């Protein structure tokens, strides 16, 4: 049963990824702009352009290009960067660790702040603590990354001089980008924790747990959060997309050498294979994480794991 479940999830995931590849490929070629022009400059002679186009294989019909790209994918060959002539896989592997580090740190910040904040808001529903937490959450949701990032740089790097302005090499460089990226997620998550916990706290089994003589903290951590986890996990999986989205902007602001900034540079240079590679990697990550969320969900919830008897 579990094998079957895994298999069907895997097949639908592959279909989604295939769709993404085709769509991005076609879209990129439809967008105005020409890599050859970017590489040779506007004053290049038409003959040189044609030669370069031939060399890069850009003269072939678009479907043929797509097929050869897909064919390459089957052999884990993502092609070469039009710009640096570096293999795309190598390029991605250089940039991936930085993005993983950033999103991981942002996720950790989000969970670490949101969980206690949401629990506190739920326990003090309608009181000052609740309003405070929800105000923070409202701010976190409404402040965009591209504003929060520069503000943090202004405050902590330029005025206080505590953290480096940009890059990844200096110690403490991770702090500001991670906060920038994690705030929105923390805000959404705190709301989610609060509302699910409030819902769960009204369930009959919470009363049962109290009637046993359990202490309040045990009731909350063992019984209430045990059940509140389920919707929170789903939200986390879905929000990962937003996190990767945000990474593109955040990395650009902080000049963080990750996938996001690679993507932006490649788009500017019309480096088709590089853009393609970035999008592919991001979409695969997203699909895989969501698949893992599903599996985790069924592992956490015995009603799904074991099924009705």
């Amino acid at each position, binding site marked *: 049963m579990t094998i079957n479940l895994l298999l069907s999830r895997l097949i639908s995931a592959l279909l989604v990824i295939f769709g993404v590849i085709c769509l991005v490929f076609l879209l990129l070629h439809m967008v105005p702009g020409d890599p050859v022009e970017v590489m040779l400059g506007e004053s290049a002679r038409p003959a040189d352009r044609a030669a370069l186009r031939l060399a890069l294989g850009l003269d072939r019909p678009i479907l043929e290009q797509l097929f050869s790209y897909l064919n390459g994918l089957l052999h884990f060959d993502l092609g070469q960067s039009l710009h640096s002539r570096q293999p795309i896989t190598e390029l991605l592997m250089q940039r991936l660790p930085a993005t993983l580090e950033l999103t991981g740190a942002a996720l950790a910040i989000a969970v670490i702040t949101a969980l206690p904040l949401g629990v506190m808001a739920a326990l003090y529903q309608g009181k000052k603590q609740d309003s405070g937490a929800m105000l923070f959450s409202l701010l976190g949701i409404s402040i965009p990354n591209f504003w929060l990032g520069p503000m943090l740089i202004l405050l902590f790097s330029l005025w206080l001089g505590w953290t480096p302005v940009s890059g990844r090499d200096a110690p403490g460089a991770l702090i500001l980008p991670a906060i920038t990226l994690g705030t929105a997620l923390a805000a959404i998550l705190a709301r989610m924790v609060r509302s699910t916990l409030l819902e769960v706290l009204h369930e009959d089994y919470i009363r049962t747990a109290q009637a*046993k*003589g359990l202490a309040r903290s045990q009731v909350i951590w*063992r019984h209430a959060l*045990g059940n509140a986890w389920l919707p929170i996990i789903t939200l986390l999986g879905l929000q990962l997309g937003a996190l990767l989205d945000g990474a593109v902007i955040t990395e650009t602001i902080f000049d963080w050498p990750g996938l996001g900034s690679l993507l932006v540079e490649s788009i500017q240079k019309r480096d088709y294979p590089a853009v393609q590679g970035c999008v592919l990697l991001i979409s695969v990550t997203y699909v895989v994480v969501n698949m893992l969320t599903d599996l985790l969900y069924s592992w956490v919830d*015995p009603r799904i794991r074991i099924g009705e008897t």
Partner: protein
Amino acid sequence: MSDLLLRVSNLKTVIGSGDSPVRVVDGLDLEIRRGETFTLLGESGCGKSMSALSIMRLLPMGGHIIDGTVELDGVDLLKLPEQEMRRVRGGRMAMIFQEPMTSLNPVMSVGKQIAESVQLHDNLRGAAITKRVVELLDDVGIPDPERRAQEYPHQLSGGMKQRVMIAMALAGRPELLIADEPTTALDVTIQAQVLELMGRLKREYGMAILQITHDLGVVAESSDHLAVMYAGQVVERASCRGFFNKPLHPYSQKLFDSLPTEQKRDRPLSVIKGTVPPLDSQFIGCRFADRCDHVFDRCRSEVPQWDLLSEGQGVRCHLYDQIDPKVGTLCLPTETVVEPCEQEKRDKPTLLSVSDLKVHFPIYKGLFKRTVGAVKAVDGLSLAIKEGRTLALVGESGCGKTTVGKAILQLIRPTAGSAKFDGDELTQLSRSALRTRRRDMQIIFQDPVSSMNPRMLVGDIVAEGMVAQSIGVDHADRQERVERLLEQVGLPVSAINRYPHEFSGGQRQRICIARALAVNPRLIICDEPTSALDVSVQAQILNLLKSLQSELGLSYLFITHNISVVAYLAHEVAVMYLGRIVEQGTVEEVLQTPAHPYTQALLSAVPVPDPERAKERIHLQGDMPSPAVPPVGCHFHPRCPQATDLCKQAYPDRVVLSDTHTVYCIHTER
């Protein structure tokens, strides 16, 4: 050690604060002795659950105890610090709840949940805890306890879950077990099992039970003493036997009068007029005065005091006052005007005839969603309803009776079989023809709250069917008809411009009935229309249904699990078990001389509100099997006390006992 275990005096609990807090418990006095079963009896909203939660100090958010004492063995629980109270809770005093389905944590195995209690209240560690958990599960009669301890709540049936709840409560070896409607959510055969279990455990553990119920039958079966609650106060206290011999308070008497029974078939049930007063109001006189048949001047001006008539028996009513005793007037039965009952005829034409109806829900599995089997919710069912008559379809939850109703209306398309309505084959009708036919067949659902769109006005809800069926010439005409309908079901015309949530449960069910009547149906399928209602409200709805039948010549398919409602209302009865009818006949035949062992067991499991009439009970073991894999042979044989090897061979043939009485059992003698 004194004999008195729990003494509650002048307990007052409010919910909310500000100008008019709701006084849910208003001066409760109780005494419970060791080893006895004490019952708090009352209808919903009278404060009985809140009393129990106050005693446990488990009030929901916003609830406060403002006055009184709760002494357990001389110690005032209300003065204990929370930390010490936690040791009492689940230790000396444990509680089980009404809804076993939702009262267990769904993501924790039942063994772990019981182990939590054991760990808190027993000085055991490690393997000893596991051993004790298995012991407890064994104690509450769960077969194969080692394996069950590993399972999760969703893998257990309702009855099993309630047993697990009881096991959890027993973990602290309580002196007092508070049971809040412990069997209300369970089927009657399972209810019998759980009541018997509680009785046995009470003796074995030597504990007292504070039982909360609205069911007079359950009270009669299991209590020693009882108190009747009304609007936050105890209005009568008595020994069980004394109470059933002669209920004193007018409210208690009304509760008995509104019970449907076979003897009351020929007259409308007695009803309590009006509704329970809101508990945030200020009371000047007796709280029951506005609804009481014996009300006199003093009732409205002076609060009746508690009259202790003898040891353990008391009542809060001016009629029993020493100064102005009016007790004499009270023993007269409150006879309502008997409407002449319509002469029953058997040779009426058949309106609906269903034959060999099957509804199978396929089970999909695997990667390609192959069909691997089917849940046979309804598996070859035949029945017929005559014009102007009521057929009751009786069975326990999960037997497929609701599916039958929906399949007849073609709300679920049947897998096979036929349903003929007035000569038309419903299963063959085209969509548009079926739509027109729908005006003849209507349905009333169990839950009047969720079966109405909360954003629609009552007038629109009732008129919607007329619009759909183009009944009535224009809006004004329909409006007039809606007004007539509302009057017919006993609602004020002003209801038209109000929303469903402004009405009480009984009133909402009246709106649902008006909605069904709006298209002039000939058949109404009533799917447990009274099971969400209190007894006194149920009586009103049953009266209404009965008088509508005699006025309009309606036919009812009455789907229910309540045998006393069947006895009061039905003409014919069909008993269903696991998708099939096992016995069918007139109401006298089936209820007086049940032929199928299942019918016999079902009838014997119904608690009778009469402690003198101890009856022979047939105990069914286990639960109903899954309709996906019904047992081979007779579906009932694994639970049947009369089963032989022959029963496992094939499904029994139909045995005709009389023109109207048929049964499917090989042990029946013709």
